[in-house]
Structures are given as C-alpha cells and as structure tokens.
C-alpha cells in the first residue's frame, strides 16, 4: 500500500521542484555540518549541537525521501520507453512484408507481359476480310464485337476451316481420276463377259451329245439345283447340307429331290397369296399365323377339308440314301408339312441280296416304325416336336399327332436338326422362318454315322436271331465257350415275322414272372420283345427278351422262368434269379472284346450254359439219393456256396471249370 502510494506520489509531484528541494536540503545539511564543526571547535554547549544535529537529521530524511521518489520515476520512464520500442518493431515488420509482396506482384506482371502466344505467328486474314467472308456461325458478331479475345478465337477458327477445305480440295482430284479409270476398266470387262455368254452357250449345246454319250450328269445336277430352289427352306437346307456332305466326306450317301415340280411352282404362288391374306387379317387380330389360317378355314370350309389341309405335305420331298458296306441301303424320304412347319421322315430298307435270302426285309426288326426309334436318346418320333402343333390339332379335334404318323412319316428331333430347325420341345416358337445352316452342319455327320450303325446292328441282330433258330454252334461266335451244351433252344418266337413283336409284348405284360420288372419300369413302348423256350429233358426254361431300340448300346434284358414238371415246386427261385443276373449283368464276360454285335447270341448261349449248370448241379446234390436224370458233365469246384446255396454259374474259360460268383 505504501509502495503504491509512493509510486503515485512520485507521479504526482513535480520533479524539478523536488530537485530544488534536494538542493535546498543539501545546502541546509552542509550549513548544519559547518555550524556543528564550528561549534565543536569552539567547544560550545552540547545542547546547541544536539539541536543542530536533529535539524541535520531531518534534512537527511528529506533527501532520502526524494531519492526514493527519483528511483520510482526513473523506473516508470524506462518502462514507457521499452513499450514504444516494441511498437516500432512491429510496424517495421509489417512494412517489410508489404514490400516483399509488392515486389512479387511486380515480377508476375512482367512475366505475363512477356508471354508469347502461338497464334501471333499465324497470319490471319485482316479484320475487314474476316467480317466480310466468315460465315455467321463462326464470326458471331454479337459476341466478337466487344470482346477482342472472342474475336481472335473466331478468326482462328475461320482460319482452320479454310485450311481444311484446302486440303480436301487437294485430295479430291486424284481420287476423281482414279474413279474414272476404274469405271472404264469395269466397262471393258463387262463387254468382254457379255461377249462370252453366247460363246459358252454354243459350247454347252455342242457338248450335250458328248454328255449324253458319257452319262455325265452335269445337266441333271443343274436341274436338281434348279428344282432345289423350289424346295421349302428347311428341306433346302437339308438338301444342301446332304450334298455338301456327300461331296466332301462320304461317297456312299446320295440325295435327290422327288416330286411334282409344277405343283411346287404353283404352290409357291398360292402360299404367297395366302400370306397376303394373312397380312390383311393381321390388321384385325394379331394371333399366330397358324391359328389365323385355321380360323379362316373353319368359317369357309367343311371340317374335313380343313383337317386335311393342316396335314398337307409339300409336293417336293428330299430322298436321302445311305449305303452300307454289305450292300444294303437305307432310304430316308423327308417331307415338309407346310402348315405344321415340321419335317417328317419315312424310311425304307433295301437289304442286300444275302439279306433278302434270309427274309430280313419283312421283319419287325427293320420295320419303318421301329428302325429309327431312339437314334438319339428318348427320340421316339411319335410326338410332334413343335408344341404349337398340339394346340392346332386339338382345336380341330384331331387328337394326338401319333395317329397320323403312319401316313405322314415320323417327325424325329434329329430330322428337324438336319433341316436346320432348332425346335425346343417345351418352350416353342423360335422364329421358324430361318433354318440355320450351322445347326444342320453340326448334326449331319453324326446322324449319318448313327444311321449306318443302327442299320448295321439291326441287320446283325437279325442274322443272330435267324442263326439262333438254325444252329447255335456257329463256332466263330463261341470261341470263348468251349464246353458242350445239353440244353437246346426249342423254340424262338420269330421276331422278324410281322406282328410277333406285339404278341410277345402282350404275353410279357400278362406273365406272372415279369411283373416285378414291369413294376421297375422295364419294357417300354419303344422296346422290342421276343420270347423263347429252352429245354433239357423234363426241365423247361421260358424266357422273355426285352430288346432296346438302341441295341447294342443298351444290352437286351432277359426275364426267365423255370418249369420243371418232374420236380414241381422245388425250384429255388433265387437260382433262377442268379441265372438272369448272369446274362443281364455279366454279359460282357466270355464275349470277344469289340464284338458288340454278338451280344445277343452270347447272352442266349450263356443262358443255355447256366441252365445246364443249374440242372447238373441240382442232380449232383441228389446223386446220393440214387436217381439222376441228367448226368454231370461239367467241372465245378463246389455245387453250393453261401446262404442262398448259389450255383457255379461263372465259367472260367482258361481252366474250363465253373465257380460261384
């Protein structure tokens, strides 16, 4: 508090007055000291001296006080000085910054001023010329009038435009010249060709007798090609691909076009006419052409005419003949159903002379219905592959397409493929108008191969079956089975006689011992059936054979039944079952590899063998009882094995003995 007081006191008081006060006090003090000195030397009274000393001390105090104040003052002056100094420093710094900035800006400005643009080197047209010549779109006077920058841009653009034009002009001329030269060349060539035509015709005329003499079919081919142009598109694709395939790969395939060309010509006009009609009705409703046609028919014509119309074939057919190595051949006749838009095939087999001797041509095995079934898996050719046809047939109350198969031919899927038509069985109606060549190309070779194979297998199957009836001992097939047979084939229903397949099929369904197999879905519509009987003394073995259409890829299945009059009811059903397993499952044993055509013979042979083994082993067990109807001839290690007392049906062809499986 005192400190603060003194500080403010120092500020309040005048410094000069204090200085005067100080001088006065110092003078007083000096005077006092002198007086005291004089008094001391005069040896005056102590009281005077004391009085003077008090006075002197007072002066001293005053000086002290003044000294203090002087110090305070000095301090406050120093403070204010340093404050002022700081302020000056700050201002100085700011000044420096501003100076530097100004210098930088100046530098930039000079840099900009010194920049040289490229356009300054380009010689532009003068301003007047520009305003006069430049089109409005480039000059844009509204913008460029006030803006020199835009003006320059516009002038540059104009310059570019003009230079481009110049360059084009330069190339134009030589091109024109070139064109003229080419035109002239074309003209001379045309003249040459035109002069050639009558010459060629005369040559052709002249060669005609030679052609006829040599039997060369150039003209015939030409005619066929001419006729081909009247073929409906799918058959055309087929014909083209077939001839191409013949020329390129396979001389033993031939294709030709049959039918009435005039009718085809007239039909072409008619069908166009029909199309026109359709177009008119298109404006009334937008349904499918099939249905439209039918609807119109139904209003104009009686039902039968309409039905016939729906099944109309195109008058031209393509005939494909596939020749096999053994001299037999397969004739396929492809027809196009105009309104159903599908292709059907009818087949005929021309057997070789040897086969004719065996009576093959009349058999069920090579019948047109069954021959081509399942050429591709599940392709039966009874249903129309186009779903819309079903609706068309239903609408006219014509039932299933399969009823008409005999008269129209079979619409197998592969036939549609060969004709380039991709038919999806469920979701139908791909655009039908554009058969694809590539599709036909993909399937042509494979299908021809399959046709050949099917033909070969059927004929071999037929030979096997017919030889089964005559002699089972044809040694070349049986080289692996060297044991003598006692059982013999008593009766084989001749499947190659017409209708026997149907009879066998009915008895297959009725037989008690086939019921389990039928329950398992064996023996479908497309399979062929035959049955037979094997006998040995009083024992009899009835068998059914289910012959799949794609034999021998799928091996025939046997169902067998044992009847033994002298030992009724004794037979163990399991042994019969084992016999069937032997032929149905282990058919590949004892067969020569890569001789798939012998499969059926081998199976029947095996069945005979197993039957022999069965009977012999049965009697072998009983031989102790004293009577033996059938002597034991075959060698087997054991007569029974396992809980089911299995018989030794497995034949070891190297060592010649029988053993259990």
């Amino acid at each position: 508090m005192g400190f603060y007081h003194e500080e403010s006191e120092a500020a309040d008081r005048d410094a000069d007055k204090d200085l005067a006060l100080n001088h006065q006090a110092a003078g007083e003090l000096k005077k006092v000291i002198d007086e005291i000195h004089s008094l001391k030397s005069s040896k005056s009274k102590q009281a005077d001296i004391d009085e003077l000393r008090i006075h002197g001390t007072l002066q001293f105090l005053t000086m002290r006080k003044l000294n203090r104040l002087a110090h305070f003052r000095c301090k406050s002056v120093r403070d204010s000085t340093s404050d002022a100094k700081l302020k000056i420093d700050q201002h100085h710094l700011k000044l420096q910054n501003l100076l530097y900035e100004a210098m930088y800006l100046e530098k930039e400005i000079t840099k900009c001023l010194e920049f040289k643009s490229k356009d300054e080197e380009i010689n532009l047209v003068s301003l007047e010329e520009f305003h006069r010549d430049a089109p409005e779109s480039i000059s844009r006077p509204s913008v460029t009038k006030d803006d020199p920058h835009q003006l320059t841009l516009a002038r540059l653009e104009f310059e570019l435009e003009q230079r481009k034009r110049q360059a084009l002009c330069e190339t134009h001329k030589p091109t024109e010249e070139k064109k003229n030269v080419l035109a002239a060349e074309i003209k001379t060539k045309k003249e040459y060709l035109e002069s050639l035509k009558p010459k060629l015709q005369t040559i052709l005329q002249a060669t005609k007798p030679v052609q006829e003499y040599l039997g060369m079919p150039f003209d015939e081919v030409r005619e066929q090609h001419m006729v081909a142009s009247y073929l409906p598109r799918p058959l055309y694709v087929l014909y083209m691909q077939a001839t191409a395939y013949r020329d390129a790969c396979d001389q033993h395939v031939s294709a030709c076009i049959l039918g009435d060309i005039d009718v085809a010509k007239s039909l072409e006009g008619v069908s166009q006419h029909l199309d026109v009609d359709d177009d008119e009705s298109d404006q009334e409703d937008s349904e499918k052409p099939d249905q439209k046609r039918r609807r119109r028919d139904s209003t104009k014509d009686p039902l039968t005419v309409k039905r016939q119309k729906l099944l109309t074939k195109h008058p031209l057919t393509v005939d494909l003949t596939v020749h096999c190595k053994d001299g037999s051949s397969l004739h396929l006749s492809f027809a196009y159903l105009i309104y159903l838009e599908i292709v059907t095939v009818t087949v005929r087999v021309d057997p070789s002379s040897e086969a004719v001797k065996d009576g093959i041509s009349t058999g069920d095995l090579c019948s047109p219905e069954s021959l081509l079934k399942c050429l591709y898996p599940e392709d039966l050719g009874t249903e129309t592959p186009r779903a819309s046809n079903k609706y068309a047939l239903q609408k006219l109350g014509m039932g299933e397409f399969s009823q008409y198969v005999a008269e129209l031919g079979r619409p197998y899927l592969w036939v549609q493929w060969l004709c380039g038509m991709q038919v999806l069985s469920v979701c139908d109606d791909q655009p039908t108008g554009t058969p694809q060549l590539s599709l036909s190309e993909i399937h042509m070779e494979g299908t021809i191969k399959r046709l050949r194979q099917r033909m070969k297998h059927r004929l071999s199957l037929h030979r096997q079956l017919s030889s089964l009836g005559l002699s089972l001992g044809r040694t070349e097939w049986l080289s692996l089975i060297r044991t003598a047979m006692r059982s013999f084939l008593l009766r084989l229903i001749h499947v190659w006689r017409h209708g026997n397949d149907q009879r066998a099929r009915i008895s297959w369904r009725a037989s008690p011992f086939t019921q389990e197999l039928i329950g398992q879905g064996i023996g479908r519509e497309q399979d062929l059936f035959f049955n037979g009987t094997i006998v040995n003394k009083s024992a009899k073995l009835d068998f059914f054979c289910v012959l799949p259409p794609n034999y021998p890829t799928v091996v025939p299945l046997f169902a067998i039944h044992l009847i033994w009059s002298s030992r009724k009811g004794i037979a163990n059903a399991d042994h019969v079952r084992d016999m069937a397993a032997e032929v149905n499952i282990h058919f590949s044993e004892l067969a020569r590899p890569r001789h798939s055509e012998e499969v059926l013979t081998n199976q029947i042979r095996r069945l005979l063998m197993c039957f022999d083994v069965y009977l012999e082993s049965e009697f072998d067990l009983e031989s102790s009882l004293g009577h033996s109807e059938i002597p034991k001839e075959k060698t087997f290690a054991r007569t029974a094995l396992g809980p089911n007392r299995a018989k030794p049906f497995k034949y070891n062809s190297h060592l010649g003995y029988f053993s259990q499986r």
Partner: protein
Amino acid sequence: MAGRHLISLMSAWQDGSIEEKILAVRQRLHTTVYAQCFSPCGKYLVTANNFGFLAVFRESFTQTEVNCLKFVHNENGSQLLGGCGDHQVHMWDVESGSHVGTLEGHTNYIHDLAVRGNSNECISASEDGTVRIWDLRSRGQAQHVMQPNQHNLCVRPQYGKFITCVAVDKSDNLMVCGGGPRLCLWHLRQLAPTAQFDTPQATANTAMFLEDSVISAGTEPFVHHWSLNGDQRAKVPCTPSTVYSLATNKILSVAGNSHKIDICTNFRYKAFSMLVC
C-alpha cells in the same frame, strides 16, 4: 474292396455313361441281401448285399467265405466264431485278433452257428446234412452229431439234406434247425426232434427264438410265427421272395433277395420297407 465297389457304383450314377447307368439299374434288380446286424446301441442296422458289402473278417482271417459269425464270452475271454466255406468253424480271439483254433469234422460248408447258454458249447449246421455240438474248451471232435434227415419227423428227400439254420432258446433246452429237412424243434438233452414246423413249399433259411415262439423264413415270401408245440401262429407276407436274414431289436427286420428291407414294428404285419441301394 467292398468300399471301392460301392464308390464305383455311386460314381457310375453321377457321371457314368448310359451303359454304366443301365448296369447299375440291373444290379439293383438282382440284389440279394445276405446278412444284417444291429449295433449294440440299437441305432444302426448293418446289411450286406451280393454286390456291395463284404464281411470285415473275410480278408484278414480266412481264405474262404464266412457264412455265419457268432460272439462268445466265457472264462477263456471273448471269442469270435465263424462258420466258413472250408467245412470248418474258425475261432478268433477278439482282443488280439489272432486265430485260436478250428472245429473240424463237417464234410461240407457251414451254414449257421448257435451258441448255448453256458457259452462253452456251440452248435453248427452244415450243407452236409449234419448238426454238430462242439465243446469250445476241448476243441476236439464234435460231442454229438445229429442228422435230421434220418428222423421221420424231419425228412424230405425231394429237397435234400442240407441244414441252413440253427438256433437255441434261452433256457438252453431247446434247439430249432432246418433246411432241406423240415424245420423242427429239438430237445437238446434227448437229442431228438419233438415238434415240426412244416412249410411244404419252401425250405427254411433262417429261424430264431423270440420269447415263447419261433420265427422262421425261407424260400417263400412269408415270415412264419410258430408256437413251441408246432402250431402256426401267423404267416406274415413280406417283399423278398426268398428271405435270408431276420433280425430283432423291438422291431423285426426282414432281408432277402430284394433291394428292399421290410420292417415290422408289430411283428404281425409289414409296416414299411427300406431301400438298400
């Protein structure tokens, strides 16, 4: 070996050609189930058919087929008895897996085995027409040889003399056996047949005691239930035309020459069938 076979069958179904698939279907048509067994916990039933499954012991213990396996536990430890195709009963120690002996005497292969209640004797039935009782401790010749086809009650010359099945009841007094001869109940102390269970059209393949009745089945599609005095209690139709195996575990399962196994929950009728493959 069996496993490989099964896998090849499976793969044929998955990615095989059409021929392999057809072959697999055909194998199913000709499937025969030879044996079956319940696991101790009662949750599993193991079956074996002619294409897929083989007995585990076949490869390691014998060179011939094993037609029947029985488990014996007596003072000598646990033993496994196998009735084999080499006319002998083989014995294996279960702990070590080693072959400990054979019972020789039959002249044809063994069809079935039964173990008596004291676990020291076993009974074998053979293709040679004899039923023999063996002492497992002495392992010599058979103690008794029975020939069912010598008894008037059993003989059926038209079927042969082979015995396919034998079983012993809990009281250890009664035995049932049959095959070519009629299925008969034998008294073990007298060693003579006391009652016949006649199936004129069929030979028995398997028989077992269940409480106070006998259950049997054979070469006809029926399971027979008999009372001990020879009366027929029930004749239950089943799927396989020849039954090879019966097994019980509160329910009765019937297996034979079919790819289906019948399950009878109530013993007196077929409840449902299970597919083997």
